[in-house]
């Protein structure tokens, strides 16, 4: 039995309590409740996913066959640039904030985030920054069309005179502020608001990953903001930071951008790794293998992630290739520890093939491909020959779409019942998984092969008939991903009202968010179970085994003392 009474609006056949429409709107506009803010983050993020996904579809349609000119070059460049910026800053970042906001306080046994009002501010900055960024399509000269790095001199006032780049820079600065504030909130919440008994080393792995991600964001986002400020001043106040003719240094911009840009990859990926580390133990019916090693691997990835940025700049010739190649390759070690932990958790487990678990396994297999191609790119010598080709595009899409997006899907199938009280349709989910698994591999494997064949990235069209087949495969794959996402959105819209009632703990899970009702009341918990391990709910359901474990560890400690 749950600790909290089942809420009437969730109960089937119960009396539905409804408040006036106006009150509901006002409630959502002014809320500081982390769960409501998380849902608003989620909806915003999905809306921007549709925008960015449409852009991706347009890009792939243009590249379907040689000589296709469905958009002119400038439009193509705008769509391609905004696809990247929207997906990174308006889909994945808010999506991570959404999952983190919903799950972290619940997993810690807290009532809310540390600074609820700041939390609301961080959220409202996202639509503001997003609309500002996308308003580039309405201004003279169109949206930013300079690629998502916004590299000068291409992005200076001479070569990109329109206002598109200016609004993009302003929007990105606002989004950066939002993420910085959100990350500060996460760090303080995790350090200060854990329930009694929840030591750092009993924290769920998702919280650990959010913690390291937030540290990275506080560390790297202000650097980007400073770089964007300098570029904005260059463009609008006639400064010469990045103008080589007047003593400026364009390489400096690349250093600043990638000093943020590489940690950003881990900012996006670590929370997803955290999600997978929640899903795999629950659906393998085993504790996470090597909890401590996993935590230290997370810290190591965070630390190493800050000193590899220049591997994006190997071909500039202005950096020490061997040093940055070495640090880049070194990251494969802690990442390997994580892969090992996940597979070892599944090993001899009683795997339950739920949709969430399938997405977690999809993450594993595709992250492996993305990671290994990354190792190739990290060793400077190979990078020199495939730099700026579709091999790179395929590589990071394997990491950010095939892996991160799959993690997001897994998270949504896993936590949607907690957020709404209703389960998503598993059959639709499994069909969606097959479609998306086929789709992502078609799209990005084709792109990697194209890259090796020499197809450069960021081209509006091409005149090489030999690339036709693979590009067609890639485009069809992209449409399949779109179809899968559509199924996902429809599944959520239907399940929100008509899905089967989930109950408190539909997955027989281990962490505290399942110890309250679905959805939880605004104060989260009526009572907390004792927290004596990183799996308080498992201990609760299996008191005997828990006691045995405790006795065993006490014995071990006792033995160790002698």
């Amino acid at each position, binding site marked *: 039995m749950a*600790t909290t009474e089942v809420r009437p609006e969730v109960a089937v056949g119960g009396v539905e309590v409804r408040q006036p429409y106006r009150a509901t709107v006002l409630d959502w506009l002014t809320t500081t409740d982390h769960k409501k803010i998380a849902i608003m983050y989620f909806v915003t993020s999905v809306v921007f996913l549709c925008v960015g996904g449409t852009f991706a579809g347009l890009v792939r349609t243009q590249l379907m066959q040689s000589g296709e000119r469905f958009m002119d070059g400038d439009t193509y460049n705008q769509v391609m640039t905004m696809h990247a910026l929207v997906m990174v800053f308006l889909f994945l970042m808010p999506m991570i904030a959404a999952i983190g906001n919903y799950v972290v306080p619940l997993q810690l046994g*807290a009532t809310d985030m540390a600074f609820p009002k700041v939390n609301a501010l961080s959220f409202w900055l996202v639509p503001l920054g997003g609309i500002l960024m996308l308003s580039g399509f309405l201004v003279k000269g169109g949206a930013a069309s300079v690629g998502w790095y916004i590299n000068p001199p291409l992005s200076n006032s001479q070569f990109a005179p329109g206002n598109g780049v200016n609004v993009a820079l302003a929007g990105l600065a606002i989004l950066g502020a939002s993420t910085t504030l959100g990350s500060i909130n996460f760090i303080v919440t995790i350090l200060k608001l854990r329930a*009694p008994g929840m*030591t750092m080393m009993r924290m769920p792995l998702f919280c650990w990953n959010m913690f390291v991600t937030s540290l990275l964001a506080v*560390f790297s986002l202000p650097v980007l903001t*400073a770089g964007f*400020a300098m570029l904005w001043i260059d463009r609008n106040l006639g400064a010469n930071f990045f103008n080589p003719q007047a003593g*400026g240094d364009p390489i400096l911009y690349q250093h600043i951008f990638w000093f943020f840009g590489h940690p950003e990859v881990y900012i996006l990926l670590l929370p997803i790794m955290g999600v997978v580390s929640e899903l795999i133990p629950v659906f393998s019916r085993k504790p996470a293998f090597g909890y401590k090693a996993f935590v230290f691997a997370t810290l190591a990835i965070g630390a190493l992630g800050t000193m590899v940025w220049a591997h994006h700049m190997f071909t500039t010739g202005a950096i020490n290739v061997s040093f940055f190649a070495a640090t880049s390759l070194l990251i494969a070690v802690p990442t390997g520890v994580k892969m090992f932990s996940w597979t070892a958790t599944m090993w001899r487990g009683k795997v339950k093939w739920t949709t969430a678990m399938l997405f977690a396994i999809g993450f594993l297999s595709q992250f492996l491909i993305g990671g290994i191609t990354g190792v190739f790119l990290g060793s400077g010598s190979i990078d020199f020959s495939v730099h700026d080709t579709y091999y790179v595009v395929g590589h990071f899409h394997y990491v950010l779409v095939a892996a991160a997006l799959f993690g997001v899907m897994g998270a949504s199938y896993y936590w949607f019942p907690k957020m709404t009280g209703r389960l998503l349709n598993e059959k639709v989910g499994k069909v969606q998984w097959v479609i998306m698994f086929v789709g992502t591999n078609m799209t990005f494997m084709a792109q990697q092969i194209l890259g090796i064949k020499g197809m450069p990235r960021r081209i509006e069209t091409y005149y090489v008939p030999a690339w036709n087949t693979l590009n067609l495969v890639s485009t069809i794959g992209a449409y399949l991903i779109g179809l899968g996402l559509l199924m996902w959105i429809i599944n959520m819209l239907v399940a929100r009202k008509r899905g089967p009632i989930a109950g408190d703990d539909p997955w027989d899970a281990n962490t505290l968010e399942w110890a309250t009702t679905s959805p939880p009341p605004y104060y989260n918990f009526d009572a907390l179970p004792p927290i004596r391990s990183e799996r308080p709910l498992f201990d609760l359901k299996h008191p005997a085994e828990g006691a045995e474990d405790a006795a065993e560890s006490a014995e071990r400690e006792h033995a160790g003392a002698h």
Partner: protein
Amino acid sequence: MTTTLPAIKDLDGPPLGQTEDAGGLSMPLMGTVLFIASEIMFFATLLGSYYVLRSVNNPWPPEGLETLDLVLPLILTMMLLTSSITAHGAVWGIRNNNRTVFVTSLALTLLLGAMFLVGEIFDAVSLDFDFGSHGAYGSIFFTILGFHALHVLGGVIFFAYQTFAGMVGGFSPRNYQAVECGVWYWHFVDVVWIFVFFTLYVVR
């Protein structure tokens, strides 16, 4: 699918409203420290850029700008450092329930900050180069100076509000964390100024 959990209320779980970690920095101060950390990264980028641009340009500073007048910047530095002490006085005042000391120190801090800003604008206007002139030198010089001035302005506005709130009875010995956060931020603005001063005026 639903698994029934044992009734959690009946177990000796941890009490609600308490946390595992009760010691150390309070939440607002920890938030302030993290905010300051992000600001440090911001200024580190600007100052780092200064040294990068310095290394790719020769001569640096450009011809015609070999000397800068140091008198006014030095006076400004002294003013800002003094304001750190008065800011601390404000915290001491409210902590010891001495409203006169609290409000006076805060007002003094605010005044010194405002005078610093006026002096800096005066200094900047008197320089014979700007954003675009003299290659990247003017760009980075005024960008660093300008962003620091904006941070001082932010502190001044914050203290102006708090001085007003203090005058009408706001804050008490048990409720002065907002003042303390502001003062920590103000210390950061001062320390950064020392780096800015040495970079822009001394090392060059």
